[in-house]
């Protein structure tokens, strides 16, 4: 483990399990494109502890989905390259360099994933039962009868009514919420150590979202699975995550326990993101919402300095523009990637307001 990795581990507050289940170091994922090589995830390191829920938060294009797909090695091999120092350690094997055969034995068995679109991630021409059975057939040596019983038991666990009937049905016969439950049942049927949930409730209505989040929380307690939850919805994060990692333009910019992130954000982006959501109960009614001016920089044309510099109200206009800050311990004793983290004694430059009228800034160059 490198120095960088060590500091990251030290930074972590004590958690239930001592040993991380999954340990990611210097994850760098690049794609070959017509416009040259694009680095979608840049030097991301984190540990996932047993029984914890780690939230990965960010706006579209920040690299949160690529991070999860890199861990599962679900990205197309012929255009994807991983950094030389990239390590995805799981049970002593570096998944970033593991064989396709090894990945097949890990996927769906020890690390399972649920996706955003329950409509498109189930196979429409096979029954629910067949799809549950497929995972069990590949990863266990149970007999046909036992697999069927186990499948129905899983459907019952995710609170699907009439599981025996549902087992024989096709995905189109189920509602969106029920399909997502089936996805969770399939993901959990081999009792994975790690569950990666990529925007699991984004396509669902709030009342159904509440059901699914409750279900995930309950299952985590029952099976002590470690969950990596990828989402852009800060409400969902506040509801279920223990720890949060905030990403911006392919970089981790801040991480820490959920309460500290929400109450004592160190990075200006985290703070701005939290302030831009309309609050329940009239707190923002009739007032202007806080906005982040401008847009996320293009990954093909990243600025040399801090990637958030052009949208940051605290930029000093010199150092921030030329030198990218490292991810290091901030004033709140958590890693943050900023020259002038919030809440620090370090002298911050006078608030150089990027623009009084943020909307005018959105125009591209």
């Amino acid at each position, binding site marked *: 483990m490198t120095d960088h990795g060590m500091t990251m581990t030290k930074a972590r507050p004590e958690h239930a399990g001592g040993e991380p289940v999954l340990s990611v170091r210097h994850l760098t994922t690049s794609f070959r494109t017509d416009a040259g090589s694009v680095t979608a995830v840049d030097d991301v390191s984190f540990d996932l502890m047993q029984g914890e829920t780690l939230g990965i938060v960010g*706006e*579209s294009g920040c690299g949160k989905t690529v991070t999860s797909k890199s861990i599962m090695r679900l990205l197309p091999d012929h255009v994807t390259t991983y950094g030389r120092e990239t390590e995805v350690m799981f049970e002593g094997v570096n998944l970033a360099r593991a064989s396709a055969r090894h990945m097949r034995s890990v996927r769906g068995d020890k690390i399972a994933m649920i996706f955003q679109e329950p409509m498109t991630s189930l196979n429409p021409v096979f029954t629910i039962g067949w799809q549950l059975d497929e995972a069990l057939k590949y990863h266990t040596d149970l007999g046909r009868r036992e697999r069927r019983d186990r499948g129905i038991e899983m459907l019952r666990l995710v609170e699907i009514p009439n599981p025996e009937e549902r087992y024989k049905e096709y995905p189109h016969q189920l*509602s*969106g*919420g*029920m399909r997502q439950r089936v996805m969770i049942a399939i993901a959990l049927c081999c009792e994975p150590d790690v569950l990666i949930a990529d925007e699991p409730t984004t396509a669902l*209505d*709030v*009342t*159904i*979202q*509440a*059901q699914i*989040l*409750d279900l995930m929380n309950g299952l985590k307690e029952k099976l002590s699975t470690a969950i990596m939850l990828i989402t*852009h*919805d*800060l*409400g*969902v*994060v*506040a*509801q279920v*995550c223990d720890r949060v990692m905030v990403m911006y333009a392919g970089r981790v910019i801040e991480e820490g326990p*959920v*309460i500290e992130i*929400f*109450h004592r954000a160190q990075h200006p982006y985290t703070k*701005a*993101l*939290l302030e*831009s*959501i*309309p*609050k*329940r*109960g*009239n707190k*923002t*009614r009739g007032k*202007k*919402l*806080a*906005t*982040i*001016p401008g*847009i996320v920089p293009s990954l093909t044309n990243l600025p040399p300095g801090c990637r958030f510099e052009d949208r940051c109200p605290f930029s000093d206009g010199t150092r921030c523009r030329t030198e990218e800050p490292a991810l290091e311990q901030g004033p709140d004793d958590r890693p943050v990637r900023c020259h002038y983290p919030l809440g620090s004694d370090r002298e911050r430059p006078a608030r150089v307001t990027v623009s009084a*009228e*943020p*909307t*005018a800034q*959105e*125009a*591209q160059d």
Partner: protein
Amino acid sequence: MPLIEVNNLVKKFPIRGGVLNRVVNHVHAVSGVSFSVATGETLGVVGESGCGKSTLGKTVIRLIDPTAGQIVYEGDDITELSHAELMPYRKKMQIIFQDPYSSLNPRLTINALLKEAIKFHGILGGDHSSAVDDYIDELIRTVGLRPDLKNRFPHEFSGGQRQRIGIARALCVKPSFVVADEPVSALDVSVQAQVLNLMSDLKKDFGLTMMFISHDLKVVEHFCDRILVMYLGHVVEELSGEDVEGTAQHPYTEALLRAIPIDDPAERRPLEALEGDVPSPINPPPGCPFAGRCPKVTDRCRKEMPPLEIKVNGQAVACFEVE
């Protein structure tokens, strides 16, 4: 006088099937909705997917023809007007769509797509090219973009910018009533805030009356004066935008409020999830549409549809169990 008044609006979509392609059934998208919007008011419509909120919005401005009911715009009944007769009203009623990627013509530059609408409706009276150009520049500036970008195509813009163009497209004919159908749902939170701020500025500057449709109660609460809560084609409750929590009485609205995660991990509480799913709008159950999931359900609810009536606190609620 209200700007728009809708009485008992019904929209059923036929389902065809069989060898003869006959109508075998109907999707009951909107079932008897009545409301009015006063000039300058912003009416929110909130509900889960499939509750009929988008169909309602499109029917009100006659993009979809209603099956039954009446739509009155500034005192004129526009329900039965022909395509040609409707033209003068088209420029007064505009819509902003959800998806900024599919609602702009990909083959037209921003300039061309704005000019098309401006000329068609004769906004500047006749063909004064320079006046039109100035007007377009001004409009693009108003929605927070740079006029020199106007010769670009929609695909060259980001989602937030495209939604700004969609807004400019709706406003270029100087409408007085705008339906915004999930205008910020496809956008990232930080961009969503920018577009919401822009819309509230424009609402003031242009004196717009709006119908704001969204599934996100937080956004609707932030933006609207009055809110209709829809469930399976029915309005189940009307809320005051100023005090949603205080005025909510319908069991469905209460459940909806409890299902929204609180944006503060310190106040985390178990979400009280509603059981079950929304029933199918094909052959909806008799009685209250929410009866199957309602914690307060009685026998009467299963047989009889509760009317939307003013209750003790002065708000309209469709529930037998609310005093």
